[in-house]
């Protein structure tokens, strides 16, 4: 086998390995949404603006981001899209000031969220809190 053929085989091989890992991730690790109607609560706290609002929704969306997008106007939400996903940059028409290290901290039932809203599955009865904080 000449060197060019070896390289083609090596590249095809590693692409196959990547495909298997992708399948494994999608099947076993990636967060999964729940189908059907869910009743959820969204709370927004922006202390410096004296805002503490609670919204209750019944939705068939499977992930938090989709609900936020649907209620974008009512929640005054804004987003910034990165290559790794979307980030909430504003709520109640207040945009977090990056120069002052502000960001919207997300908790789910009081626990810190470990992913962005696109990967947070909606579950019946859950409370999603967005609080303006500084890092």
């Amino acid at each position, binding site marked *: 086998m000449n060197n060019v053929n*070896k*390289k083609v085989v*090596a*590249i095809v091989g*590693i*692409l196959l*390995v*990547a495909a298997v*890992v*992708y399948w494994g*991730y999608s099947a076993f*690790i990636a967060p999964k949404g729940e189908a059907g109607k869910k009743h959820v609560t969204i709370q927004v706290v922006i202390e410096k603006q004296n805002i503490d609002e609670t919204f209750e929704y019944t939705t068939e969306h499977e992930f938090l981001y989709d609900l936020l997008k649907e209620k974008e106007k009512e929640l005054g939400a804004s987003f910034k899209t990165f*290559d*790794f996903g979307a980030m909430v940059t504003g709520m109640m028409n207040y945009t977090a000031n990056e120069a002052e290290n502000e960001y919207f901290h997300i908790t789910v039932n009081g626990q810190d969220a*470990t*992913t962005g809203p696109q*990967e947070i599955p909606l579950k019946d009865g859950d409370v999603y809190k967005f609080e303006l904080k500084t890092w």
Partner: protein
Amino acid sequence: MDMRARDIALIPLLSASITVGKLALSFIPNVEIVTMLFIIYTVTFGLKRSLLAAVLFSTIEILIYGFSTWVLGYYLIWPLLIIVTGLLKDRLKSEFGYAAIAGIFGFLFGAFFAVFESFFYGWAYGFTYWLRGILFDVVHGVSNYIVVLLLFKPLSRMLKAQAERFFGVVS
């Protein structure tokens, strides 16, 4: 290390080329040529010059993006790649070996930062960070492997010829 004038000129050039290479491909998530350049520079210019270029490159990252924990990690991870390449280069006979180093480095990149970030934010955060980033690590590893497999030989040949032409025999 005996720093000669040519080294003082060379090291910033190496560092600048890596910064430009990184910025040029920054629009494609986790596809980069930084790994390949560090490997080629280590093989062509040696361990010490490449380590200094890595320190300079990491410092320039701070100037561009500001100080944060991931930039701090750069001071460790790029020198680590250079040291591993430097230790293995006499044993590696072809670009397949360097492609393997680059591929493994890409696959483990997220794991390294997960451990590193854990010191600041806790192990639970680090584990989640790694788990959620697995697909990015796969893209990183695969693209590193392919980039080095295809470009290592022609680039290192060209670089060695230019280095010898402008700097004499590089030691």
